[in-house]
Structures are given as C-alpha cells and as structure tokens.
C-alpha cells in the first residue's frame, strides 16, 4: 500500500523475527497491517507534535526567559486548524477501517464451511466430511474457509492473531468469520473473551496444510460419517421426516432445496433461509411458521445439542430432493405392517 513491496516484506519479516510482530499468515493480514502502520504513524507524529510543542514553549517561555506572560484570548483560526485536521485524519481512519471491516467479515462465495462449537473450555471443530477436532483446526492453504460458530454456554471469542481475525462466539446464535491462509505452519488459536476459570486454557493450534497434505489429512481423520449423514439419522430418529416428507399432503413444509430460498412466513415477513434461520426454526418453531402451514411443530429446545443442530442444519442445507426422506418413511411404514411392531409412535423408530 504505497510502500514498495520489498521494503514492506523486509520490515514485516524483520519485526516478526524480533518477536515484536505477528506472522502475516492470511490474505487479509497485509491489509490490516497497512492500516496499523498508518495509525501508528499518526500516533507517533501526534505525540511527537505535542511533545515538541511542550518542549519548545517550555524552553522559550520559561519564567527566567519570559518573566511576564502576554495574555492571549485564543485564536479561532488556530482552533479551527486543530479541529479540522484531526477530524480529517479520523475520518480517513473511519473509512479505511470500515472498508477493512467489510472485507474481513464478508466471506467470498466459494468459501468452504467448517463448524466450530465453543464450550467451557474447549474448541470443537466439525468438518462437513465428519472430521472432528478438539482445540485444533486443520485448514488448507490458499482456500477461503468460513467458520460458522456457536457457543454451548457462555460468550467465547475465536481469535487467530496471525490471521488478524477474531469473532465473538455467542450462545444461541451463529456467528461467522472467514480467512484464507497463505502460509503453511501452525498458529495460535486463543479464546479472547473471558469465559470462566480455565479461560487461558481455551487455546488451540491452527494447522495450515498445503492442499495435498490437507487431502491426506481429511482421509486419515474421517470418522466415517459426514455431518449430513449424521443429520439424516437425526432427521429420522427425531421424527422430522413424518411432517417434512415433501408429500403434497404433508403437515410441514418441504425442506428440499429450501436453503438459500426466501420464505414468506404467516405474519407476512420474508426470511432468507440460512444456517441461523434453520437453527432458530428447529428450536423456536412458533416464531418461524411458513405461510400456509399450521403452527403445530413442537420446540426442540433442550432436546438436541449444538453438535446435533449443526448436523441437522448441514443435512437440510445439502438436501436436494425428498427421495431419501420418503424412502426412510416407506421403510418405517412397512414396519407398521410387521406383526411385532407396536401400534403407535412408530414414526420415531429408527431402522439402521
């Protein structure tokens, strides 16, 4: 940014090597650092200006030199100067900071998604392929990664200083952050929001792998079930499929392809279906009734963990047709006919 790239690299690397500056390990880091150095310059110049004024006046107008003070009322011109110049600098800072903020928090469309659950006092990362990690996160280099995060208890905050990103992890609400790692290596992960006794133990390691290494890692660490597969099991075992079957006569709305669509609710408002909407609709259905349907869905608050919710959300997100839902139902209904099956509540039975 204005500075020659060679000089920039030299300065940043030198500072980093002296343990005075964090590594620039993400795509956004140089942009954050550019603003930082601008602000640092502003602070140094501003402080130096005040120091020089104090020093010069102290020497020139000390009592030995200037026994009698000359009274001055003030000066509108001078005061306007030191109102307008700082204001202008602060406004530049505001615009620059705002642009950076949007850049840091608005993920690109091609970002891959990883879920993160924070709880006292650990980070649990869940990859869509079913890889689970505790206090660790493996990500590929050169690929935008979005984290969809939620807390199971208190406020936490997910911070990777070497990537210059941080976001609060809030109970009862998804928050997201994204980054693109640019250097292979391991980096600190901190919880930066005070969260109780072991707050300083809620740390982890971010491992950035080359795309090839990442593929290897994915294969070696899979638990055998993807999040969506787990979600499908839950969908059936919690009886969601009995209403959300996609049949014309079904009591609940069709969920296939609902993700990313705009829904009209009974109160007439329009809602974009995203991760947060799906989660809220499961926990608090009475507030999210799709137009044309009766408010009959019970709440699942307290019956399902955040991990389970993530599985369900991931399942619904990737649900393109109702074929498998109806298949599960057919299996369940065929069980009805079987002589050993109890006569009611059979929809909740899960067949392996």
């Amino acid at each position, binding site marked *: 940014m204005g500075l020659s790239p060679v000089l920039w690299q030299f300065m940043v690397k030198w500072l980093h090597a002296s343990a005075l500056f964090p590594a620039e390990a993400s795509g956004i880091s140089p942009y954050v650092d550019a603003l930082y150095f601008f602000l640092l310059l502003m602070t140094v110049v501003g402080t130096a200006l005040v120091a020089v004024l104090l020093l010069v006046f102290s020497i020139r107008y000390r009592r030995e030199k200037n026994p009698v003070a000359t009274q001055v009322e003030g000066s509108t011109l001078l005061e306007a100067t030191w109102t307008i110049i700082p204001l202008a600098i602060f406004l530049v800072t505001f615009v620059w900071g705002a642009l950076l903020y949007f850049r840091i928090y608005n993920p690109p469309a091609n970002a891959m998604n990883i879920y993160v659950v924070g709880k006292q006092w650990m980070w649990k990362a869940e990859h869509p392929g079913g890889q689970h990690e505790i206090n660790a996160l493996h990500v590929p280099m050169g690929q935008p990664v979005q984290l969809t995060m939620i807390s199971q208890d208190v406020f936490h905050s997910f911070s990777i200083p070497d990537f210059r990103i941080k976001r609060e992890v809030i109970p009862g609400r998804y928050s997201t952050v994204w980054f693109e790692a640019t250097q292979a290596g391991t980096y600190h992960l901190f919880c930066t929001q*005070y969260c*109780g006794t072991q707050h300083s133990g809620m740390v982890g390691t971010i491992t950035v792998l080359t795309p090839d290494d990442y593929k290897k890692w994915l294969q070696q660490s899979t638990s055998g079930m993807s999040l969506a597969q787990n979600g499908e099991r839950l969908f059936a075992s919690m009886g969601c499929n009995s209403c959300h079957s996609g049949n014309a006569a079904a009591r609940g709305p069709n969920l296939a392809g609902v993700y990313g669509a705009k829904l009209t609710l009974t109160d007439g408002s329009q809602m974009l279906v995203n991760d947060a909407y799906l989660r809220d609709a499961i926990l608090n259905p009475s507030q999210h009734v799709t137009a044309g349907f009766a408010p009959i869905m019970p709440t699942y608050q*307290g019956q399902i963990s955040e991990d389970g919710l993530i599985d369900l959300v991931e399942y619904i997100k990737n649900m393109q047709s109702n074929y498998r839902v109806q298949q599960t139902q057919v299996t369940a209904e065929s069980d009805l006919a079987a002589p050993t099956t109890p006569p009611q509540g059979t929809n909740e039975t899960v067949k392996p």
Partner: protein
Amino acid sequence: MSAAIGNTILSLPDQATAQIPKRNYINNEHGLLSWLLTGDHKRIAILYLISITFFFFIGGAFAGLIRLELLTPQPDLVAADTYNKFFTMHGIIMIFLFLVPSVPATLGNFLIPIMLGAKDLAFPKINLLSWYLYMIGGTLTLAALVLGGVDTGWTFTTPLSTHYLNTHVITAATAIFIAGFSSIFTGLNFIVTIHRMRCPGMTWFRMPLFVWAHYAASLLMVLGTPVLAIALVLVALERLFGIGVFDPTKGGDPLLFQHLFWFYSHPAVYIMILPGMGVISEVISTFSRKRVFGYTAVAFSSVAIALFGFFVWEHHMFIMGVSNYSALVFSLLTMLVAVPSAIKIFNWAFTLQKGSITFETPMLYAFGFMGLFTIGGLTGVFLGSLGMDIHLTETYFIVAHFHFVMVGGMLMAFLAGVHFWWPKMTGRMYPESLSKLAAVTTFIGFNLTFLPQFILGYLGMPRRYHAYPPEFQVLNVLSTAGATVLGIGYMLPMLYLAWSLKYGAIAGDNPWQATGLEWQIQSPPLTENFLETPIMDHEAYDYEWLTNKTKKEVTTVG
C-alpha cells in the same frame, strides 16, 4: 515576598512568623463524630480522600499480584480461579471505588462551592449521604473479597455471571449498585450547585474550567449510572430467579446485557477523565501565568464529550455480530468524540505559548498527563476504526490503551490536583524535590509498564490470561518491572504528603499566585468558606486583576 525572577512561582509567607489560621474547617469542631456527621463539603472531601486512597492501594495490590503472576508464562503463582478473582477485584475497586469518585468526590467536593463563591454544596446532607453510600458499597466489595471473592471480571458479562459462576456475584453487584447512587447524588449536587449557587457576577463563562468539566461529568453521572443500576438488578434477578432476560434458551438476548452495561460504562470513562481534564486546565494556566487558550472552546469541548460520549457504546461490541450498519454509525461517532479531546490537548499546549512557565510538581504531572493522554487517545482511534478493532479488541492492546487514558491520564491529573491544592486543603506545602522525584518515577514506571503491552496486544496476547505462550515473556517481564517502579512512584506521595501534614512549610493563602476564588481565602479555609459573599468582577484566569489586587494589598497593609 521576594520579587526576584526565579524558576518558581512559589511565594510562601515568612516561615518565622507564619501560622496556620487559628480558626479553620479542620479545627472548627473536634472529635470523630464531628467528622462523621459533618455537612461541610470540605470535611466530606477529606473523608473521601482518605477512603479512596485506602481503596486505591487495595486495588493497586491486586495489580501487583497480577503482574507478579504474569512474570512467567506458566500459571505458577496462584490457581486460575484466584487469578480471575485478582483481575476482577482490581477492576471493580479501581473503577467503581477509585476512578469514578477520585477527582469529583475529593477535589470537586472541596473546590466547586469555593470556586463558585458559595458556602457549601446545594444539599450538604445528601453530600454526606453519598459518602456513606460509597462506604457501604466499599464495605460490601470488601465483604465479597473476604468471603471468597468474585470472578466475573468487572464487566459482569452474562451468561457467565448469571449461570456459570458460584462466587459472590450478588454481593459485588449490590456493592456497585449502592456505590452508583453515591455517584448519582454527587452529580446531582454539583449540577444544582452550579446552576443555583454561583455568587454575584459569576456568569457561566466566568466559571473556572474545572467547574465546567465537573458539570459535564455530573450530567453523565446522573443520566448514565441508573442504566448500570438497572443492568445489575437484571443480573441479580436472572441469577436468583432465572427471569430469562439474558438467557437465550428462555428467549432472552445475551447481547442485551452488553448494550445496557456499555451504555453506562462507556460514558463512565468520560466521568472518570473529564474532571481530570478540569484539573489540567487549572494547573496549566497557573504555572504559565496565562488565561487558558480559547476558554470557550475548552468549556464546550467538555460538554461535547459528555454529549457524544452517550452515543458510542457499541464500539465495545464490533466483533459481536452487531449489524454492519450500526457498526458504521458507532464507528463514525467514535471518531467524532475523539475531536474535542484533541482540541483540549492543543489548547493546553498553546496556553504555554507566550506564558511565563515554571515547573513545580503539579505542572510536571500535568505534562505527564498531556503526553500519556495523547497516546491513550490516539490508540483509542485504532479501536474505533472497525477493521482494526477486530484484531486489537480483547487483547493487551486494549488493556494498554485503557490504562494510558485512565492511569496515565486520570491518575496523573488526580496527583497533579492533589499536589496543586494540597496547600489549600491542609495549609501546608509538600516537599518539592521529593515530589518532583515521585512525578518523574511515576512517568518512567508507567511507560515501562504499559508500552510493552501495546506490542503484546498486536502480537495477539489475550487479556485476562493467567498463562500465556512463552514467546510473550520478555515483554511481560518488562511490564512487571515497570509496575514495580510505578508502585514506588505511588507510595512516595502517600508518605511525604502524610509527613507534610505536620512538618510541611506553612503555605499562606495563595502560594501559587493563582487567580481562582479558592486562592483568595485563607488556607485551610473557614468552615463557611467566605466571611462575606464574594463578587466576581473579572474573567477566570485574570492574572492582571490578581496583580492589581496584590499591589493594593501591599500598599494598604504597608
């Protein structure tokens, strides 16, 4: 009086003949009860001074323990829970029991009626009540401490404070709730006094800037503190009865607490700093023998800070998933609130121009304030800038920024004020060279403590960490070393000021040749301040008026 041009403005009466005035507010009545039941604003100010000094050293001891633990990366001095209690108690005591009442309740209480030419504050009994409320709040805080402490952090963040901790949260919240009323009453008293009790001729624009600053701070106290009280009551109700205001599983909003809390706690920062700015205006003017440059701009900038101060609270929550557009608005307003502070700094600097400057201890502290507050203020711009805030918030950068403003700014201003008015309050001078040493020690110790924390913050070291990665150790060791120096810097005034009560030189009415009404009466003042109601027939900081007055006195007295 010697008229030779020296490097000091100090003019003391002839020590061989001088005496402390026979009748003054200190010896007017005797016995402990005469102090505990007094309605005299000066005596109440002294009660406050003693009690906030007591709490300052308790809060300081916790700061020392925190720095000691952070000397090594391993959690080796105390257990995690104990450490969390340390920083919680440090925060609660320093903010609610020291910084908020520091200048207003001591210097403000003592000086505002005198500066306005009044006999007392508008409501002397409410003034005493607010000291008792403060003491009840303080005692409850100590009770929470003795019973086992509290580990919510001074921010009481929900749902941690409501559902996940089994320490003395209710006791501490009650303490702050009660201490809050002390602050509301003080603010109310100041506002009414400033409106109603100015002496004849004391127009709004003849008031010392110290009074303007307190007026602005009082507005914040009266309007902001009730919101904190509400937030704390809701925390207590949520904890005791599970009312669910902040609990997402009951349909509550955990972010609501932070909105309520910061709606007070951001203006609270200005409650803490504005009175300090008032002190700096008085000190800079007196020791450069000059009217404050652009009096009106400085007066209005105080009011502007108070006004804008109410509309920036969300900048504490930029990373918490607030709407992008509200973040934009709050960031912009944060930039605007920085401007009046910049105006003040430059106006003070230009007050020195063409002055006749001397460098007594209060002036040294004021210089320290200007340097450190400038750094503190400008690093605040980092945090108001949205994109930068993401990386810096919740790290040691914010700890350093906050301490630059509060300790580097406010505490320096408090010490400047205590030294400046010490002769007025006690009738005796503090030892000058020792106090200069203390001022310099404080400045060096402060920078050594908090400059490394800016670097630590950018490296990403989170605040409130009991243990940290080993590569951060060098900077932490520097910081702890600085804290030791700083500790000595604060112990010194405590010792020599106590010494001076008995052995200090007799100060006389106006040792600094200052223009304020408080300097035209005896030191220590009479209980009723003035024998006859003064008439303000000149502007504030009118040194020519003072010269003429002194000349007349010399000719008539002989």
